[in-house]
C-alpha cells in the first residue's frame, strides 16, 4: 500500500518530488521539441535542393 501522508515533512518531501518531476518533464519536452524543430528544418532545406 502506498504511504502518501508525509506529515510532518510534507513541506519538504513534496517540493523535492515536484521540482524533480518538473525538471525531468522539461528536459524530455526540450529534447523532443529541439529534435522535431531541427529535423523539420533539415527536411525543408533538403527538399529545396
Amino acid at each position, binding site marked *: 500500500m502506498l*504511504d502518501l501522508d508525509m506529515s510532518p*515533512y510534507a513541506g*519538504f*518531501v513534496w517540493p*523535492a518530488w515536484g*521540482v524533480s518531476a518538473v525538471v*525531468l518533464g522539461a528536459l524530455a519536452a526540450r529534447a*523532443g521539441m*529541439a529534435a522535431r524543430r531541427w529535423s523539420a528544418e533539415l527536411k525543408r532545406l533538403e527538399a529545396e535542393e
Partner: protein
Amino acid sequence: MFGLANPDRFLRFTRPLMPAVWGLAVMLLAAATWLAFAAPEDYQQGDTVRIMFVHVPAASVGLAAYAALGVSSFFALVFRHPLADAAARAAALPGAAFTALALITGSLWGKPMWGAWWAWGDARLMSVLILFLFYLGYMALRASIDDETRAARAAAVLGLVGLVNLPIVKFSVDWWNTLHQPASLLRADGPAMPPVYLTPLLTMMAAWGLFFLAVWLTAIRTEIVRRRVVSIRARRALEA
C-alpha cells in the same frame, strides 16, 4: 563499436533504439516511484527518507553526465571528432539540471534533518556546487564564442579540467569531516541500508540513468542534424 563514431551510422543505429530507451525509462520511473512511496518511513528520518530516492539518483547522474562530458571532451580535443564534441555538448544541459536537482533536493532534506538549508564549509556540498559551476561555465563558454570550432576547443579544455573535481566530489566525505553522511552504497563491506530502501533507491537510480541516456542520445542526434543544417546554410551563403 568504433563504427558508431561515424555520425551517419550513429543516427542509423540509434533511430530504432530511441522509442525503447524512452519507453523503458518512463516505465522504470513509474515503477521506482511506486516503490519509493510503498517503502515504510524511516525510524530516524521519517518520511524525509523519500527525498533520498530523488536526491541520490540526481547526484549520481549529475556526476555520470560530467564524466560523459569530460571523456567526450578528451576525444573531441585529441582526435577532433565531431561526434565526440556533439556528445560533450549534449551532456551539458541535462547534467547541469541533474546537479541542480541534487543541490535543491539535498537542501530540502538538510533543513529538517540538519536544521540548515546549506552549509558553506561542507566539502561535499561545495564540491557539488563547483560541479554545477563547471557545467554553467562550459555552456557559457560555448555560447560566448561565435566560431563553433574555437568554442568547441575552448569548452573541451574546460570540460577536461572539470574532471579533476569528480573524485573530489566522490571522496570528499572520506577526506574531510563533513555534515554529509559517508557513502552508503559504494562501500567495501556492501551497501549500508536495508533492502526495503535499497530496492527503490537502486530502481530509481536505474530509471534516472536510463532517462539521462534517452535525453542525451536524443540531444546528440539533434546536434548532428543541427550541424547539417548549419553546414547547408553556410554552403548556400557561399554560393549566393
